[in-house]
């Protein structure tokens, strides 16, 4: 399949790659070691329009398209999984729902700062008791005059400690199940809102992950996102888009690991031969490349589906499922090709392997993707 990449997209890829190689790659090891959020990189990306790629210029976006955004996450992930997910979570999980479900006033108020990267966005759906089963929301929102009062806790929130603007979900009607969930735009300075401590994780160490705590948090009524009781739909649609970002992140991780493995196996000599001369190496790399190419097709197809306003829910679920499992498989094989060196932190493949695992879990586990795909197949 030929994606007919436009001149602009080809130029973007070149620019992303240059930026990733020069600005992101040199920091990848450090932010992983230090579990440090790469704020300096976010500032640079903001200047270049990378925090609002596919949104219209009238709201401060770069006026691009969804595939151009997916390519950005992909190129970043080739060298740093953390930096990729910062952009993905910000764009897909905060900017997108405000753009797609917000009122004109909300868009004018929040998007310019978010899309220009002055502010970072995050998304609060997951709770200790509501993971894949998002309908089990325990956070409660009660309307009191001109504002809602929120109480509850969100967990594992990407960009949690660094974000200024949050799209948050809470129950406005406990009895109504999914139809009782409502979405809100929460600012970090709202009274009663606080962020928990940095979660220590297996991978994406530089990514900020924490709890969001609501203790009688006051959210003005005008910050209702969409209609009351329609939050579940907002969440599901947002996650459909978010999966493109995570799929692109997984794709980039796989590609990055292949780049490293090709380079290494051409240099490393054992038994008097370069590793690349062994058929096992060639077969491994051929399989890895093949799977990754297939993943790229699925990811790009999903991105174009969203761009063209098709029903892309199944496409994005397939892209994420396949790309994430590919990333885990390919990075693991890359470590194996490196042998002992691959297991050390001297080479980036062990980090890539740790970073890859999360792509099978967040924004819908691989199992959740299979549920979505089966549902679209009519298999009940």
């Amino acid at each position: 399949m030929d994606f007919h990449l436009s001149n602009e997209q080809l130029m973007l890829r070149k620019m992303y790659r240059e930026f990733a190689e020069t600005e992101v790659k040199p920091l990848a090891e450090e932010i992983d070691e230090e579990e440090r959020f790469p704020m300096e990189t976010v500032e640079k990306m903001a200047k270049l329009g990378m925090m609002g790629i596919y949104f219209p210029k009238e709201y401060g976006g770069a006026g691009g398209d969804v595939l151009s955004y997916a390519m950005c996450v992909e190129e970043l992930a080739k060298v740093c999984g953390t930096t990729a997910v910062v952009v993905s979570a910000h764009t897909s999980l905060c900017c997108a729902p405000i753009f797609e479900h917000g009122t004109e006033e909300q868009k004018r108020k929040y998007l310019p700062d978010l899309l220009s990267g002055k502010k970072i966005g995050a998304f609060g759906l997951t709770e200790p008791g509501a993971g894949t089963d998002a309908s089990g929301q325990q956070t409660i929102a009660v309307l009191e005059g001109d504002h809602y009062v929120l109480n509850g806790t969100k967990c594992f929130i990407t960009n949690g400690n660094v974000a200024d603007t949050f799209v948050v979900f809470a129950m406005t009607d406990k009895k109504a199940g999914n139809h009782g969930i409502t979405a809100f735009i929460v600012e970090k300075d709202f009274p009663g809102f606080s962020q928990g401590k940095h979660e220590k994780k297996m991978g994406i160490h530089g990514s900020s992950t924490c709890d969001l705590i609501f203790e009688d948090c006051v959210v003005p009524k005008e910050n209702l996102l969409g209609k009351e009781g329609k939050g579940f739909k907002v969440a599901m649609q947002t996650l459909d888009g978010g999966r493109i970002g995570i799929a692109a992140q997984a794709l980039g991780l796989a590609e990055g690991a292949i780049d490293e493995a090709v380079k290494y196996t051409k240099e490393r000599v054992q038994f008097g031969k370069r590793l690349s001369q062994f058929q096992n190496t060639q077969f491994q790399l051929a399989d890895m490349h093949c799977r990754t190419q297939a993943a790229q097709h699925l990811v790009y197809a999903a991105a174009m589906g969203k761009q063209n306003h098709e029903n892309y829910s199944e496409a994005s679920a397939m892209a994420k499922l396949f790309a994430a499992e590919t990333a885990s498989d390919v990075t693991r094989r890359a470590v194996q090709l490196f042998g002992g060196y691959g297991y050390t932190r001297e080479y980036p493949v062990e980090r890539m392997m740790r970073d890859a695992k999360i792509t099978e879990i967040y924004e819908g586990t691989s199992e959740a993707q299979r549920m979505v795909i089966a549902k679209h197949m009519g298999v009940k």
Partner: protein
Amino acid sequence: MKIIVSVKQVPDTSGKVAVNPDGTLDRASMQTITNPDDLNAVEAALKLKDETGCKVVVVTMGPPPAAGMLREIMARGADEGVLVSAREFGGSDTYATSQILAAAISRIGVEKDDIVMCGRQAIDGDTAQVGPQIAEKLHLPQVTYAADIQKTGDTITVKRMLEDGYMTIKVKTPCLLTCIKELNTPRYMSVGGIFEAYGKPLATFDYETLKNDPLIDPTTIGLKGSPTNILTSFTPPQKGAGMMLEGADKASCEKLAGILTAKHII
């Protein structure tokens, strides 16, 4: 006020460079890039644009694919591009190239408060000649090796690098400056800039466009107009491999020190 930046597309000699059996460069196998010093000139121009809102026009002489490079520079923020391209211009040495670029720049127009900028030199030829020669042909004062550029009114103050220090030079516009990498760090293309780049004006100047300029004459352009000729080109012989010492240990180091002493090298 406007700034005209002259740039060149060059083979990327930092990567693997392939040479054909006949000793010529295998250009087909090499990536092309924008000459690095030229990007410093572009950045200097864009900085002045940020400060003053002036227009930045980028000009190159080369084959039609060089237009892609001009688009990339427009994606960094340049406003207009001019591609100077014609069969008649082929085979030009630096002298003839300067002559043609001077004519092109003069057609774009150099007014009282304008600046022409170039990179110090291109990595394919490393001649550093085109900047000064454009300046001479356009009768502009030049300052080369600019490591800092400050503009106040019509006066430009340049920190001009020497091997053992620098000179501070004041020059009035219009003038030509050549830029070195110490001057700045070139910005990236931006996402928004890329989506705008293809909508910006890009003109092509061919022989017809420039032929009435007094600088353009069959005896001053192309192969015929080039005062220099290549007598021969060749690849230098590879120096033969020496001796690899067995083991990265103390014994090897001592052996090496012993050889150097025996040969009276140390």
